[in-house]
């Protein structure tokens, strides 16, 4: 299924490795250093939180790891693939098969039902119709939305929408789950529900999770490692013993 070429590397333990990666862009006269020389190694199966205030570059770094953006300098190597060297086509395949993403604003397509939203990545992967539907149903059942298959996102609560987004992120069995402020639009109760699911996938499916958040308490409760960014630079990197259930 995966056709993304891999580069050989002795370091196979690392799921993600960034080497002095930078993402700069120009806004008129000023040069914005969204990510500025970050080197980071994430082990396979790790649950890592990227923390920082708004504008610290944590989302930009996540986009680089997600293959949505390309670094201006340095490299990001995920599962032995140097993302900077992949073509646009290969990068799309990488996003399709290796990465699952959830966002603060859920990013479900409003005109589609949950089932259709979840099966969309399978359409891009050219999976047959019958198989597509059964996989999507299973995935939605997994996040407890069995009764909502034919509802549109607007008919659902925020928590339900985020669970649907999780179902979509997991549909192609990615190695990497990237979450950008997944609880940012949710109340604390539903936020906790989502976080519990993230941890469950991390533990039971062995998925590497990288979560961007500005809520330190949340990060400390779930993540095994906390990485702090400010002005695009890595300022602190510490391991954490996740707290118990809320």
């Amino acid at each position, binding site marked *: 299924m995966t056709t993304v070429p891999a580069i050989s590397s002795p370091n196979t333990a690392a799921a993600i490795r960034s080497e002095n990666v930078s993402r700069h862009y120009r806004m008129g006269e000023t040069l914005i250093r969204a990510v500025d020389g970050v080197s980071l190694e994430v082990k396979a199966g790790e649950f890592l939180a990227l923390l920082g205030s708004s504008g610290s570059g944590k989302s930009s770094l996540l986009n680089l790891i997600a293959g*949505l953006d390309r670094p201006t300098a340095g490299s990001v190597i995920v599962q032995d693939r140097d993302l900077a060297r992949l073509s646009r086509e290969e990068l799309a395949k990488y*996003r399709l*098969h290796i990465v699952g*993403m959830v*966002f603060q604003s859920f*990013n479900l397509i409003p005109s589609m039902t949950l089932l259709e939203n979840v099966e969309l990545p399978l*359409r891009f992967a050219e999976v047959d119709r019958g198989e597509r539907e059964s996989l999507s149903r299973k995935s939605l059942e997994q996040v407890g939305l069995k009764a909502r298959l034919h509802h549109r996102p607007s008919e659902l609560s925020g928590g339900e929408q985020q669970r649907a987004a999780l179902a979509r992120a997991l549909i192609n069995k990615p190695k990497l789950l990237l979450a950008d402020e997944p609880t940012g639009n949710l109340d604390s109760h539903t936020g906790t529900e989502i976080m519990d699911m993230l941890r469950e996938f991390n533990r039971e499916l062995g998925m590497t999770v990288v979560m961007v958040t500005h809520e330190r308490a949340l990060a400390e409760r779930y993540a095994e490692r906390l990485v702090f960014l400010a002005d695009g630079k890595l300022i602190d990197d510490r391991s954490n013993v996740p707290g118990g259930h809320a």
Partner: protein
Amino acid sequence: MKLPDLTELALRNLRESILRNSLTTIGISVGVASLVAMLSLGTGLQQLFTRRLAKSGLFDTIYVSSRREMRGMGRAEERNGPLPGESRVLDEAARSEIEHLANVSEAYPDIRFATELRFEDKPHLTMISALPQSARTNDAFENLQGHFFSSDTAPEVILQKSFAEELLGKTPPLGVPEPAVSELAAPLLDKELTMRYAQRSTTADPTAGGLGASDISGASYSVVSREQQLKIVGIADLDPESMRGPTRARVFLPLKLAESLHVMQPTDLREISRAASNEPVYSSISVRVKNPSQIQGVEDAIKKMGFTTFSILDASRSLQQVFKVLYAFLGIFGSLALAVASIGIVNTLVMAILERRREIGIMKAIGASDGDVRKLFFAEAGAMGIIGGIFGVIFGWAIGQVINFGTNIYLKSQSIPPEHFWAVPWWLVAFAIGFAFVVSLISGLYPAGRAARLDPVQALRYE
């Protein structure tokens, strides 16, 4: 993405902004309708002309004349053949030979002469032409008052309308509408005419008060004045100037009757060297072919025999050229509306990109490639093209029906028989839908490319 998925997604996206996409699709329909209307008018007119020409009996007829008739004309094609003086004479033997060629249904001499007809003791000089029985189906006699000749030898006559007017002394001055044929027919049908003519005969007939024997260069025959009673059986409403061949006359006789009269024809004087034989010599004969498509072969065969031929096919070739030019013009005008509609597609899709920026970003984030996004927009453009094309064809067909109907009401009010000058052949239906599809895809090129290049990070940030 697979084609069924693409189609499904494209149609669902089109449904999402139903109003805007419908308007764009209607724009395409109007463009296609105008194209279909224009081209079907062209096709219909061509079919009408072809039908008319076929019915006129000219399409399956070859006019054969002896090269001797071409003396002094010096046309290039004639010069290539045998010298006029040496070429064959168009006599009965030649006619019979031509009639026995493959695919020839009949070959009859063109008998035409000027003579005097007396009606109610007044003489009228006119051109008389002989018609075979097969002319009965000729388009020229479509509105014949009375009936066609009862047999090929009956002493009957059909008059052309203007001659009928002359007989009745009713010739209208220029600018005044002509009287209806039926009006002329009533006082003339079944009346008798007397035709006075000069008979060419090899043995002098002293009883007929001969004009005297001709004796030129050793050949001799006499010309005898004769009279023949004829019954008027029909009045034809045709314009003698618009036709070629035997219908270019004002009075018509049955062919066999005309032949048996041995009327002195202008060619007889020129063919004097051959006149010693008793065989008639024709200035020209008409050859009817079983099927218009066989005309070329028969024409070639007759040319090989050493005669000069003319067929309307030569003329219809230039007519086809005219129709090609007409098609091109109609097509260009018809396509203009489609060109305008294609700008509508570009506009709609560019708007769709702005509106669906976020959606495109989402699709890219979850794994859609540039190609997937491009194909999706292409599919939307193509779907609008096909739907617009289908409706446009229906619409164009309906316009044609309405105009056809309206024009026929007008024609009827002018007492002209209704015509079908509007045709939407299957190739036009397929072409119109295909053309709309291709034009839509071309219109989709720019928007699809733009959507495909959209930066997902920017697109997702967009609210």
